[in-house]
């Protein structure tokens, strides 16, 4: 009784608090947003605990039983995603009050927090729902609010980036809508579990095959799957710093989760990987993403843009794991969803600290920051090491898992791709660190970032180290979640 209310409350609380943030006092709005996000995080932890005990929390919204009403279904896989999303949101929000000051004028800040909460609610709703159409609705909440958040950046290119994202995102969402129409047409239901039950009887249908294609491409657009990633670099590069940190760590991850959910829990492993050419297509696109995006990242002058391209490459790793179609591969993907959120959160936050002092994130202008802001740059170094995958960091844990899954499946070329990708990551991160530490500092004295920014940044940086050896909480949960996904498939 308590738990199923919590499952709904964690999504609805930010949604209902969002209008209240329109009050004209920005401190109140910030406090409300942070508290609310923290509440969702607490709920997510409780739900994760329940899911770890082997339970599935089912919440029938409106009191209507499953296929007739909308239900929330929290199992290990989405409890993990819920925890990441609300956790990162809370940490980034703590920094937002200070970091926003240079980026958004005070009068618009309450609007910012309101949209942020809506975005959080949308992402959580996408992860929690067990209804295909409800997934679309919450996807649109999160998308619409992220367009608005990105457009609030100072640079005018933030506007064009938001518009491009809006166009591609809406095409993606409409593709998902088409897919849901075809699935509904073939099965007569919108509930995922009910759909999964009815799909095998129509598995030869060309309508279902077409739905599968549209769903993959639609979600692919939202998660910036390799050739569909054009919106991402500019969006992350020109958004306000807090937004980049939040979206980079969570938005694409929820889309990855959505793909996993549909592929495994709705269509089923046999259909997705047997009847459809998904493994080959995904593996090829993922390998291309890792290699191409990492190479492009090397040539970026703007560090935020470099991290954005790196995100495209990292999504490639997750897709590699999924394309293996084995419990080990999916576990690697889920673990990387978790670890990459920590990595990118730490990196973007420390970059945010730098941008807060230097008013820029272009490499040349940050020369010598390593000496001026040692703690900030220290966090950046930790994040960089984790991104490259140095042992004893979180990034290493998931890459190791991915490598062993690739060997286990006998797909050794994929293992080679992972290794080359890590080397490329080492190159672009080295270029960034070289600028920070080895170039002469600018004559203007720059002080260390304030504690409100520094502490949350270091919390994430230390999490990278902690989850590097305490892997039972990240990799362990991911493995259990993957096993659950394979067991629960019809």
């Amino acid at each position, binding site marked *: 009784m308590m738990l199923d209310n919590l499952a709904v409350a964690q999504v609805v609380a930010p949604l209902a608090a969002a209008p209240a943030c329109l009050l004209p006092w920005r401190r109140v709005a910030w406090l409300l947003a942070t508290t609310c996000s923290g509440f969702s995080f607490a709920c997510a932890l409780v739900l994760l605990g329940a899911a770890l005990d082997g339970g599935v929390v089912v919440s029938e919204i409106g009191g209507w039983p499953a296929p007739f009403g909308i239900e929330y279904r929290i199992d290990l896989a989405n409890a993990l995603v819920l925890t990441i999303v609300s956790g990162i949101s809370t940490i980034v929000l703590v920094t937002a009050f200070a970091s926003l000051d240079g980026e958004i004028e005070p009068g618009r800040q309450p609007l910012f927090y309101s949209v942020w909460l809506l975005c959080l609610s949308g992402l959580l709703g996408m992860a929690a729902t067990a209804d295909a*159409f409800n997934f*679309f*609705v919450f996807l*649109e909440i999160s998308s*619409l609010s992220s*367009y*608005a958040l990105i*457009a609030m950046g100072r640079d*005018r*290119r933030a*506007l*064009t980036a*938001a*518009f491009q994202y*809006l*166009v591609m995102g*809406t*095409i993606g969402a*409409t593709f998902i*809508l*088409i897919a849901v*129409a075809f699935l*509904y*047409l073939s099965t007569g239901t*919108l509930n995922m579990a009910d759909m999964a039950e009815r799909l095998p009887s129509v598995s030869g249908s060309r309508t279902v095959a077409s739905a599968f294609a549209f769903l993959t491409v639609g979600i692919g657009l939202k998660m910036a799957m390799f050739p569909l990633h054009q919106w991402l670099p500019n969006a992350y590069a020109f958004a306000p710093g807090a937004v980049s940190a939040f979206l980079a760590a969570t938005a694409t991850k929820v889309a990855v989760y959505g793909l996993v959910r549909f592929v495994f829990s709705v269509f089923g492993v046999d259909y997705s990987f047997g009847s459809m050419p998904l493994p080959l297509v995904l593996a090829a696109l993922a390998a291309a993403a890792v290699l191409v995006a990492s190479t492009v990242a090397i040539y970026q002058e703007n560090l935020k843009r470099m991290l954005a391209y790196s995100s495209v490459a990292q999504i490639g790793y997750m897709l590699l794991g999924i394309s293996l179609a084995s419990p080990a591969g999916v576990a690697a993907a889920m673990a990387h969803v978790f670890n990459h959120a920590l990595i990118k959160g730490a990196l973007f936050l420390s970059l945010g600290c730098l941008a807060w002092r230097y008013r820029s994130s272009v490499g040349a202008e940050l020369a010598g920051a390593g000496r001026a802001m040692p703690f900030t740059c220290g966090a950046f170094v930790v994040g960089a090491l984790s991104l490259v995958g140095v042992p004893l960091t979180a990034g290493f844990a998931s890459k190791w898992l991915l490598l062993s899954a690739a060997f286990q499946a006998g797909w050794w070329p994929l293992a080679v791709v992972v290794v080359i990708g890590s080397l490329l990551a080492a190159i672009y991160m080295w270029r960034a660190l070289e600028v920070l530490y080895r170039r002469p500092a600018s004559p203007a004295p720059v002080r260390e970032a304030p504690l409100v920014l520094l502490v949350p940044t270091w919390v994430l940086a230390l999490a990278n180290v902690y989850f590097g050896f305490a892997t039972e909480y990240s990799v362990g949960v991911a493995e259990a979640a993957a096993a659950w996904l394979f067991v629960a498939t019809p």
Partner: protein
Amino acid sequence: MKEFLLHYHYWVVVFLMMTGLYAVVASGNLLKKVVGLNVFQASVFMLYISLGVVDGGAVPILRPEVTVYSNPLPHVLILTAIVVGVATTSLALALVVRIKEAYGTVEEDDIHRRDEAE
């Protein structure tokens, strides 16, 4: 031929959808892209509604004298989708206005040129 008669509704709708999508991806003018998105979405709405049509069915408002009704569920879904669509449109149009103010143009090529000139 038989195939055509049975499915022509869907095919016309598909054609309309693709007309809208073409305007989105091929047009360089931002406002026209928005119009294209709207045509695309409105056509998807028609796809949904045509799924729920029942031969000889009536409007799904229950009355004692009627026994066969059309399917109400697609109607509900599309009501939601229409509102989502207009929300997206208004945000897109606001962005277009701001882009015009910041760049002095709403043509994609010009915007790229001005960004690169910076």
